[in-house]
């Protein structure tokens, strides 16, 4: 396996094009429960959401990816590397941000992040320099010489993210990165996660908050009770619903009444008109009604399903 790794620790080109994750028949049984049950999925590089309810098997999946637990059955490859054969090489390419508190509270953020940089294999000088840069990147430049014990929840989450990416990983595993954050902190964290993709770092974000995934992930893996529900590009999972949203300014009620007379079911919601249309012919009739009433048309769009709806429907469909 070492022949596949360059002296700088990076992968040979053949592996750089490998899928981010290749999981085949993955099963993890504990004495009392089966955490993962014959899970098979292949995931491309990018920002991936690992979605499931509490107890669905997300954390177990992370432990298996990190080589910290052994699979009962099955096979895992991360960035083309076999986790069972060379967990050290895999961990050298990963960053990990756990959900729970995991930081030494009596040390400064700069020391902690630099130490974890060194533990990721960086030379001491490079680790300290990168720690400074990364803390700046996550918005902790002024607080980096303060003990972590005095940090707010949001600052601790940022420090956890900083230690996860200080080693310049190819893939960073984020376990519920927005847990415990207020709405502003949550948006900031999601913005940081979204930026990681532009840095060339793939992201696997485990969460039960589908809204977070919909905001930042371009690929989704949904699991439930240890089984795969569905996996695919986020856009492809957000199906068209047959409902059209129309914005005609303050004349929404006028339009609803007119559409009712034309047998097009419609209702007004928060100043917008939602119309159920069946095919292009009905969409043309909707356009004609708006034109006859001489209403201004600010927006006309097809409403998509949310990931919540996809998850609920697919979970019910799966055996």
């Amino acid at each position: 396996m070492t022949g596949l790794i360059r002296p700088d620790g990076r992968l040979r080109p053949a592996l750089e094009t490998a899928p981010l994750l290749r999981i085949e028949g993955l099963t993890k049984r504990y004495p009392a429960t089966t955490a993962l049950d014959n899970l098979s999925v292949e995931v491309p590089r990018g920002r991936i959401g690992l979605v499931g309810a509490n107890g669905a098997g997300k954390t177990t999946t992370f432990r298996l990816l990190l080589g910290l637990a052994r699979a009962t059955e099955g096979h895992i490859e991360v960035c083309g590397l076999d986790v069972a054969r060379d967990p050290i090489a895999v961990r050298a390419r990963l960053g990990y941000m756990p959900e729970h508190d995991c930081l030494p509270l009596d040390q400064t953020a700069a020391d902690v992040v630099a130490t974890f940089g060194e533990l990721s294999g960086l030379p001491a000088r490079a680790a300290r320099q990168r720690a400074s840069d990364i803390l700046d990147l996550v918005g902790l430049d002024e607080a980096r010489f303060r003990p972590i014990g005095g940090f707010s929840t949001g600052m601790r989450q940022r420090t956890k993210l900083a230690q996860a990416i200080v080693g310049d990983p190819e893939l960073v595993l984020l376990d519920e990165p927005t847990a415990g954050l207020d709405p502003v902190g949550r948006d900031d964290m999601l913005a940081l996660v979204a930026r990681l993709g532009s840095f060339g770092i793939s992201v696997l974000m485990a969460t039960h908050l589908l809204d977070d995934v919909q905001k930042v992930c371009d690929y989704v893996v949904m699991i439930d009770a240890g089984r795969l529900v569905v996996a695919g590009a986020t856009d492809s999972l957000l199906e068209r619903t047959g409902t059209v949203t129309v914005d005609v300014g303050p004349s929404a009620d006028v339009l609803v009444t007119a559409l009712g007379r034309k047998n097009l079911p419609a209702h007004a919601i928060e100043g917008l008109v939602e119309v159920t249309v069946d095919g292009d012919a009905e969409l043309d009739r909707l356009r004609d009604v708006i034109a006859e009433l001489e209403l201004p048309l600010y927006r006309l769009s097809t409403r998509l399903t949310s990931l919540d709806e996809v998850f609920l429907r697919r979970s019910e469909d799966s055996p």
Partner: protein
Amino acid sequence: MSAGAARGGAVYDRGYRPYEGTRGRRGAATFALYKASMRRALGIRRSWRQKVAPFVLLGVVTIPAIVNVGVGYVTRDELFDDRIEIINYRDYVGVSSALLLFVALVAPDVICPDRRQHVLPLMFARPMTGVDYVFAKLGAIATIIFAFSFLPQVLLFVGNMLVSDGALDYFTGHLDVLWKVPLSIVLLAAYYAVVGVAISSLTDRRIVAGAAIIGLFLVTSIAAGIFVGDFEAEEGESVAALLNVLAMPLYLRDLVFLGHVDPESPLAGVSNGGLLAILTYTGILLLGVAVLLRRYRWVER
């Protein structure tokens, strides 16, 4: 940058720069943890309070050397058949057992917070294993104990050499010290490090670990004292001296310096006492390492 921007300042988004340099693996990660543990134990990059204990202790264990050299200097022109010697090299290794207090203070501080503050998952998500973790922590504690025991001995040796009538004669006359002292201190440092770290690994509370370390050494030395007294009275042998966990590295020190058990030692008179001491020492060391490897066997089966 425009003049206006220069006057008003500018905010730069330095963005993210990928790391292009060389990258170490297990060895580098283990060495990094070793260094971080040493820094923590010595209070480096921590508040001044954390620096007090290690360096006060270093001062305390250095006092006998300073006194010995000082007396040697003051009496250098007196006509004595033998020089006044406050402490010799072998006994000075025994003084290092005062470092037990240091071990009870530092080993829990280096081990317990990692478990209590849930830092271990972050450690083991790096390119290192439980074995690497154990040996980095043991190495850090053992190195400090060695340094704190060895530096005063160096001071004693160099000082004695300088205040002697002939420095070269003193040096050539004490060549055996140059290997006996380091070897004895290696045995002592490894032993205290393993016992201290192994006990600390069993709890995530520093105060409990510290009390347990002190308690183990005190209880076993008291128990050995009681049993040895009985044995001496009844049979003239004192195999129960082996119960004294605190004295075990000192028995080995005697073997290194004298080549046999010290006749004044509680172990004197026991047949194969030296061999039994070596076996007990090795057994305790192996037990401690086994406990540690078990506690940090991080891969879930």
